[in-house]
């Protein structure tokens, strides 16, 4: 936040400095959301070129970083909109085994969620926790990660996500359920199991 304030100005700086000033942060922002270094690089480039050619003008009162990230967000959504058409329309059940492994055929928990010892919020201050969380999100099958990232990281409404991915609400709910269940299990295996157990 302190950095943002120090960069606050009423106009954008020389475009020649953009890559050095904002390139890495924009790259990390995009990488988190598209999971591919190559795609993230392309999107940063597209966003900066769009900023340069004035496709979205800089607003007074905003910071240069916020302005550029705003353009990048649009490029990320465009990327998802374009790639969604290439997704095969195969059944969700055959695409991953997340729920099949979690529940018995009768619909009961196989093992059930384990107790997460201690205060899970303590994890938030640890850098390693965020490494594990990012790995768990990236490790989701693409068709689940796409929906999850648009909904939870881009904070789009369910309706908007359906439009971008070209899927029905029922399909979105099914994908989100699988994504959350997979993520829950991944965090349990790779983070909470490492903590000492109580009792």
């Amino acid at each position, binding site marked *: 936040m302190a950095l943002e304030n120090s960069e606050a100005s009423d106009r954008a700086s020389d475009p020649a400095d953009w*890559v050095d000033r904002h390139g890495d942060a924009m790259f990390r922002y995009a990488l988190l959301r598209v999971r591919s270094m190559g795609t993230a690089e392309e999107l940063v480039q597209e966003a900066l070129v769009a900023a340069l050619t004035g496709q979205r003008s800089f607003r007074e009162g905003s910071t240069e970083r916020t302005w550029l990230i705003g353009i990048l967000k649009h490029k990320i959504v465009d990327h998802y909109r374009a790639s969604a058409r290439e997704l095969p329309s195969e059944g969700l059940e055959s695409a991953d085994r997340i729920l099949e492994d979690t529940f018995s055929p009768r619909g009961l928990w196989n093992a059930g969620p384990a107790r997460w010892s201690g205060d899970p919020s303590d994890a938030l201050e640890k850098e390693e926790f965020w490494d594990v969380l990012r790995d768990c999100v990236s490790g989701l099958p693409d068709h689940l990660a796409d929906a999850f990232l648009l909904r939870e990281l881009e904070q789009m409404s369910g309706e908007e996500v359906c439009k971008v991915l070209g899927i029905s609400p029922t399909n979105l*709910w099914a994908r989100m359920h699988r994504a959350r269940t997979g993520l829950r299990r991944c965090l349990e295996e790779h983070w909470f199991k490492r903590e000492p157990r109580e009792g």
Partner: protein
Amino acid sequence: MATLREMCRLLNAHCDQMSALMSRAHDDTLPRCERWAVRLHLLYCSACRRYRRQLQFITQVTRRLAAGTGEDITAPPRELSPDARERIKRSLNG
């Protein structure tokens, strides 16, 4: 009657369907029957109560991830490669 039948169906639902409804509640307003069925189920199912708490935790941490602007503890420790940096600079000069 239709509502009653729906209620009976939901009361017989197991944890897989309940967990789906609890997840859906994060994306959509649940219809009244479903909402009550989940509440009743949670009264006697401790595994689903735990699942619900853990889903809330996941929502909390991903919100924090979403709020990051690429420079805090939540950001991946990566930088633009020298190649990409040069390529982007060239595209801004051209």
